[in-house]
C-alpha cells in the first residue's frame, strides 16, 4: 500500500503502523465495550428484544415491509412528479428571455433555501385548510407535496448543470446546420444531458428517500421510520428496532448510491458520449476536481 501522501512503509514505519492499528483498535474496543455494557445494564441486549426480528415474521409483514412500501411509494411518486417539473424549470432558467429566466430563477432559489420539513408542515396545513384530502391520506399528500416543491428546484439545478456541462461545440454545430433554439434543445442538448445527469438523479432519489423519514417522525405518515414507535410499543425494544430500521434504510440507499457511482464511472469512460457528466452529489456537496493527492490507492 502506498499513496502520494506517504512513503511505502519500511520496517520502522511498518512497526509504527502496527502500533497505531493496535491503539486505534483499543479505542474502538473501549467505545464498543462501553456502549454494550451500558445497553446490557438497561437490558437492551436481552435475547427477547432482538429475537422478534428473526422468529416473529409478523414484525416484518405487519410493520417493516408495509412501512418500507410506504417510504418507497412516497419517494417514487415525489420523484415522478418532480422530474418533469424540474426539467421544465431547469430549461426555463436557461431561456434567452429575461421575463422567463428571472422569475423561474427566483422560484427555484426560493424553494431551495427553505427546509423540506417546513414545506411539509405548510402543505399539511394547506390541505387541512382546503379540506379536499381525507385525513388518512393527508400525511402522504403533505410529504409528497413538500418533497416535490423542494426536489423539483434541486432537479432544475441538476438539469441546468447537465445542459451547461455539454461541450459548446454541440450548440455551435447545431446552429451551423440551421437548427432553431427549440430544436437545439430537444434534439441535441436534452438527450445528451439526460445521460449526463443520470448519476445525479439517482443520488437525488437517495436524498428523497431519506427525507420521507421526516413525514414519519413529524406528520404521522405510516412509513418505515414511524414503525419504530409501533414495534417498540409492542416489544419494548427501542434500540433493537432503531438498529433494524437503520439497516433497512442503509441497505436500500447504499445500493442506490453504489449504482449511481457505477453509472458515473461508466459514463465518464464511455466512448460514445461527450464524457460530460454531473457528479452524483451535486445537490448536497459540490464535489469533483482532477485526480490528485488523495486519490484512493
Amino acid at each position, binding site marked *: *500500500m502506498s*499513496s*502520494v*501522501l*506517504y512513503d511505502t512503509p519500511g520496517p520502522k514505519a511498518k512497526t509504527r*503502523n502496527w502500533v*497505531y*492499528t493496535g491503539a*486505534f483498535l483499543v479505542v*474502538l474496543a473501549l467505545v464498543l465495550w462501553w456502549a454494550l455494557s*451500558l*445497553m446490557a445494564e*438497561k437490558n*437492551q441486549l436481552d435475547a427477547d428484544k432482538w429475537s422478534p426480528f428473526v422468529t416473529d415474521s409478523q414484525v416484518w409483514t405487519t410493520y417493516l415491509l408495509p412501512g418500507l412500501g410506504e417510504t418507497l411509494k412516497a419517494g417514487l411518486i415525489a420523484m415522478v412528479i418532480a422530474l418533469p417539473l424540474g426539467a421544465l424549470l431547469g430549461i426555463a432558467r436557461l431561456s434567452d428571455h429575461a421575463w422567463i429566466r428571472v422569475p423561474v430563477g427566483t422560484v427555484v432559489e*426560493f424553494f431551495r*433555501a427553505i*427546509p*423540506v*420539513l*417546513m414545506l411539509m*408542515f*405548510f402543505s*399539511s*396545513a*394547506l390541505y387541512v*385548510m382546503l379540506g379536499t384530502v381525507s385525513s388518512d391520506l393527508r400525511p402522504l399528500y403533505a410529504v409528497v407535496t413538500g418533497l416535490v416543491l423542494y426536489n423539483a428546484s434541486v432537479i432544475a439545478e441538476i438539469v441546468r448543470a447537465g445542459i451547461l456541462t455539454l461541450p459548446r461545440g454541440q450548440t455551435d454545430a447545431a446552429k451551423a446546420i440551421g437548427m432553431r433554439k427549440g430544436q437545439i434543445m430537444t434534439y441535441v442538448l436534452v438527450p445528451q444531458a439526460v445521460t449526463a445527469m443520470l448519476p445525479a438523479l439517482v443520488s437525488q432519489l*437517495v436524498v428523497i*428517500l*431519506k427525507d*420521507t*423519514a*421526516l413525514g*414519519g*417522525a*413529524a406528520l404521522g405518515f405510516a412509513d418505515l*421510520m414511524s414503525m*419504530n414507535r409501533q414495534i*417498540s410499543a409492542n416489544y419494548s425494544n*427501542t*434500540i433493537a428496532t*432503531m438498529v433494524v*430500521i*437503520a439497516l433497512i*434504510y*442503509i441497505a436500500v*440507499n*447504499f445500493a442506490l*448510491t453504489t449504482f449511481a457511482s457505477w453509472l458515473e464511472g461508466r459514463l465518464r469512460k464511455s466512448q460514445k458520449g461527450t464524457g460530460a457528466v454531473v457528479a452524483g*452529489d451535486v445537490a*448536497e*456537496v*459540490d*464535489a469533483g*476536481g*482532477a*485526480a*490528485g*493527492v*488523495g*486519490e484512493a490507492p
Partner: protein
Amino acid sequence: MFDFLNSGQYDVLGAFWVTVQLTLYSAVGSLIWGTMLAGMRVSPVPLMRTFGTAYVNTVRNTPLTLLILGCSLGLNQTLGISLGGGTFKETGFRLAVLGLIAYTGTFVCEAIRSGINTVPVGQAEAARALGLSFFQVLTLIVLPQAFRAVIAPLANVLIALTKNTTVAATIGVAEAALLMKEMLENESDAIFAVFAVFALGFVVLTLPTGLLLGWVAKRVAVKR
C-alpha cells in the same frame, strides 16, 4: 394579516436564535469531526481507512431523522445519556447537535477529500522529499491548500446544515420549524403569512452565508 407577530404570543426571533445556535455548534463540531474522518480515510493505517470508509458509507445513507430520533429515544430515554444537560430543553439541544455532527461530518469529510484531490501531486512529493512524515505532509502542506479549495463546497454543506437543523423539531427542540408547526395550527386563517415569515427567515439565514462564503472562496482560492 401579520398581526400574529404583534400578539406577543410567539417568540419568532427566539426560535430562529435557537436555529442559529444549533447551526453554529454543529458546524464547528462537524468541521472537526469531518477533518478527522478525512485524515483517517487517507492515512497509512489500513484499519483507520476501513473505519473512515465504513462510517461515511453507513451514516451518509441513514436518514438524519433516524439519527436524531435515535439520539433522543435510544441514547437519552433508553440508556439515560443526557450529555450533561440538566433540563429537558438543554438535553434535547445537545442530543440534536450530536446527531447533526455525526451526520454532517460525513459530508464535510467527503468535501475535504475532494479538496485534497485538487492539490497537485508535486506538493506532497516535494514535502516527502524533504523528509516530512505523513502527519506533517497532511497538516502543513496538503490540508491548508485543500481547505482553500473547498470553501465553496463547505459553504453548501453549511447551508444544508442550516436547513437540516429543522429536523431537531422532531425531538421537540424549540427551534423555528417547531414554532412554525404550532403557529400553523393556531393561526389557521393566516397560514400563508406564517409560511412567508419563516421562509423569509431561512432566506435571510442562508442567502448571506452563500454570498459571503462564495466571495471568500474566490479570494482565497489557490491560483493554479
